């Protein structure tokens, strides 16, 4: 089955999954551009991050492949590419780190300014 020219067949061809990731990234950009709350902007950043990680792990999919772990693999079955999974693990941990730092910065900004509204946090301008 297909919408427009994009086929739904997840096991085989088509770019539909990539488009999902791109749309996730676009949602994150929307939150960063139009939301006025610091926490919502952090959520937007995490959305972009999720989209990128999703894209990264989807790039490594090989149709009909199993997880690249020989302990559970059944003989003769192909395996998906292991590198993108490693990269995704790395970028997930990096995302955790950045989110933690951003949120603690948000705590301190709120402690100093008494608000989380971006439009009121503009001491540094000009």
């Amino acid at each position, binding site marked *: 089955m297909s919408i427009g020219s994009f086929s739904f067949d997840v096991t085989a061809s088509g770019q539909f999954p990539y488009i999902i990731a791109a749309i996730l990234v676009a949602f994150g950009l929307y939150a*960063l551009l139009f939301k*006025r709350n610091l926490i919502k902007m952090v959520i937007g950043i995490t959305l972009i991050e999720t989209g990128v990680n999703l894209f990264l792990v989807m790039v490594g999919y090989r149709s009909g492949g199993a997880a690249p772990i020989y302990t559970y693999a059944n003989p003769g079955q192909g395996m998906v590419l292991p590198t993108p999974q490693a990269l995704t693990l790395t970028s997930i941990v990096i995302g955790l780190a950045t989110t933690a730092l951003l949120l603690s910065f948000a705590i301190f900004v709120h402690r100093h300014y008494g608000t989380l509204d*971006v439009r009121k*946090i*503009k001491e*540094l*301008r*000009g």
Partner: protein
Amino acid sequence: MGGISTGFGVWNPIAWTLLFIGILIIGLFVRSRGNKSYKRGTDQTQPFLSGNREPENPEALHVRGANLYWGMVHGLSGYYKRVRESHTGILNDYVAWFIGALGLVFVILFWIG
């Protein structure tokens, strides 16, 4: 060893410095030949503030840094108004500039070549 030759000329700091020192020496020599007739401590060596007396508080004479170039900033006020307004401390605007530049780069890369 000191100099560099651009494709257009030569820049040699050592020679420049020697020349500078030479001109300095000549200038000091000319100055030393100058008129010695004025006396220290008299009005001849007092600062002349367009006829006003020198204020006791020397702080009053110090031109603060922010007061420099007010004329130039005033002359460029149109430009400065626009540029300083673009530096709103709002994070959304910063992200917007970033995204706008990204879109512009995409457009240039795909339409021009």
